[in-house]
């Protein structure tokens, strides 16, 4: 019966052993290389298509992009951001946990890309979120942006005000 025990134990051992072997076994190198090459080529093609689409849909003379970034303490949790340009709502964005994490870690989200004629335009933005003790926060900002000939970039930054440690908008034109 000891023999049976050994066989069974050996069988049991195979189970993790197989997994261990799998972890290190090299995959078909040819397939891997092909996949890598294809990825590289599709990425380059995707870049060129992306550029073409941007040039067609948002020519640089009329292009306006609004970005959102955050620099707030751990007591504020963003729920959504609403954006209006010249009275027309162009973005109303609800954030997932993943997106929030990306923003907190330094990521910058392009919340809107569109077209505007040269001249002055009114930009209104609101953000809604939760502060300490689950208290609702809603803040807004209004500003006039001047659209010139080249593409226009506007950054909406949610930052903690040093005087009251409450989040507010800071707007920067690039």
């Amino acid at each position, binding site marked *: 019966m000891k023999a049976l025990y050994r066989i069974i134990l050996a069988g*049991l051992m195979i189970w993790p052993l197989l997994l*261990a072997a799998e972890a290190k*076994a090299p*995959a078909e190198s040819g397939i*891997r290389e092909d996949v890598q090459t294809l990825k590289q080529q599709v990425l380059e093609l995707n*870049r060129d298509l992306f550029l073409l689409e941007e040039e067609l*849909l948002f020519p640089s003379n009329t292009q306006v992009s609004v970005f959102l970034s955050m620099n707030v303490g751990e007591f504020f949790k963003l729920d959504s951001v609403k954006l209006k340009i010249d009275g027309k709502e162009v973005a109303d964005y609800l954030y997932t946990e993943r997106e929030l994490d990306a923003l907190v870690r*330094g990521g*910058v989200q392009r919340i809107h890309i569109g077209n505007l004629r040269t001249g002055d335009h009114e930009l209104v933005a609101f953000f809604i979120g939760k502060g300490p003790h689950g208290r609702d926060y809603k803040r807004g900002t209004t500003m006039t942006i001047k659209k010139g000939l080249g593409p226009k970039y506007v950054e909406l930054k949610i930052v903690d005000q040093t005087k009251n440690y409450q989040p507010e908008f800071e707007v920067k034109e690039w």
Partner: protein
Amino acid sequence: MPKLALQFLSFWIWLAVSVNGFAVSVKPHEVRDLQYGEVLFHFYQDDYFTAITHLLVARKQNHLPHHRQEAELLLGGLQLSYGMLDQAEARFNRLLDKDTDRKLRNRIWFYLTKISYQRGRHEQAFNTLQKIEKPKDKKVRAELALLNANIHMEMGENAEAAEILRKAPAPAGWEEFLRINRGIALLRAGDIKKGRAILDKLGKKRSGDEELRALRDRANLGLGYELLRNGEAVQARKYLNRVRLQGPFMQAALLGAGWADTEHGDYEQALTPWLALLKLSSHDAPVQEAHLAVPYAFNKIGDSKRSNYFYKQALEFFDKEQQYLGEAIQAAHSGALVSLLSQRSIDANSSGGWLNEHPTLENVPSGRYLVDILSGHQFQESLKDYRDLGYLKHLLQTWLENIGLYYDMVEARRLAYEQRAPLVRKRLGENEIAALQKSWQHYNTLIQDDSRNNDPLNLATGKEKQQWKTLQQTQEKLAALPEQPRFIKMQDKARWLQGVLYWQIQSDYKVRLWDAEKQVKELGNMIGEAARNHQQVATALVDVKAGFDGFDTRIETLRTRILSLLPRIDIGRANASGHLQELALKELETRQQRLASYRTQARYALARSYDQVARQNRNESEEAQ
């Protein structure tokens, strides 16, 4: 085996922690180019394909002037995460050729070490790692120590690995990973006592965190099997008992606990965990083996009736399993595996990647075997390639559908151009700007002359000029009248009034001259701007037309590129799915062979048991006679 099982554990533990460290190490202090921040936004969400695309676009548009070097490093890291090891390695090596700063070089060496390690080039990984300067950040130091220790363990230098981990700093969140790896290294180095002590301490640690609880289970399971192998069954049972009954290692722990009991002859006790395993509706290896172990234990305690019963049950179980496995093999052959893998492959929010949730098993014969296989690392890697290619195909098909729209957009603009261009050309032909420039030149000359002549009357207002003229005419009329005191007095008054008017104009002259010069200058600027616009419109009239043709050519080139890549992606996918099928069949056939062996064992044991009973009956009847 435990050695290899532990190796498996340490590999996964390192992989699990290395992703975090990598993310931390690329975060810039300050985002100075918005587009760089946009790349990070996608990178931090593990959406590597989108992040790489944005980075390539931003680089092409020269939008990363402040993060040029970091962007190159990030691109290498993204390629690494997206499974483009060759491209990542080449990029990092290229970056080293350049005049990179010390900090950046260290990060490059780190990535190159990681690539060499992943490719199994351990010597090279070790040599590259030596070039990295000791970082100040404790987390990065811990990450490096873990990588270094894993390289040493792969090269069989377990004692060195344990020493590296002993010296490593243990910042929050890293302590347990470092400790379990050190315990493993010590066990592998033969320092059983120390290795056990470390794993024992880790195995007792309470935690509310699921990841740490799973780590604790792993430590206890690993240690339990190590002790079982060394014949220390009582100690082994202690550690196996610590494994949670709700955790992923429960089955292996129950099986091991039974064997630990049998080691000191307590077969009745062994039946408790083994019978618990039989009650599970699982088909994993521990449950399969428990089907053999239970009758074996009954046999050992002399209950041949129950032993035979469970051997028969085991045979039925193995027969059914063989049948399922046969169906699974057929399903793999018929391509059902690939359809299973295709589920959830096209997700609008994901660019392919790992399969985070098991696919649903509806309408897939014996799907559970396939799901078991899917959880293997090598399957996951190949599956990732397959899913990535699926996403790329979907993406290119979407672009191909849009290509027609781009043609229409360009055509619509061409039409609009052709409608407006004649009017614009006509206006340009009228050369209004030349007339404006001439007129401005005239006023500019006037002002300059005036500035030289200092004649205030030139800057009199219309009303003042009218008044001046009236006074002049009045004086002329008065001069023609007879010299009477009344007229002389009127002449004096008119002269006086003219003097007052002149004085008023003259006293304002400097301001008027300054204002006039300013206005002429501003007008000059405006006319200059208008002239430039005029020129731009004239140039645009030619360029825009050429631009339409340029767009047509670009769109057609891109369409051709899409069409040439799509069949290659299909071939790539077919190869990847073929490879997956091959791996699945290999695994299924191994399981089939194992089951066949179990079945033979069960039949042999059952036959022997029947034989024993028959012999016993014969002996009893002989004795009775």
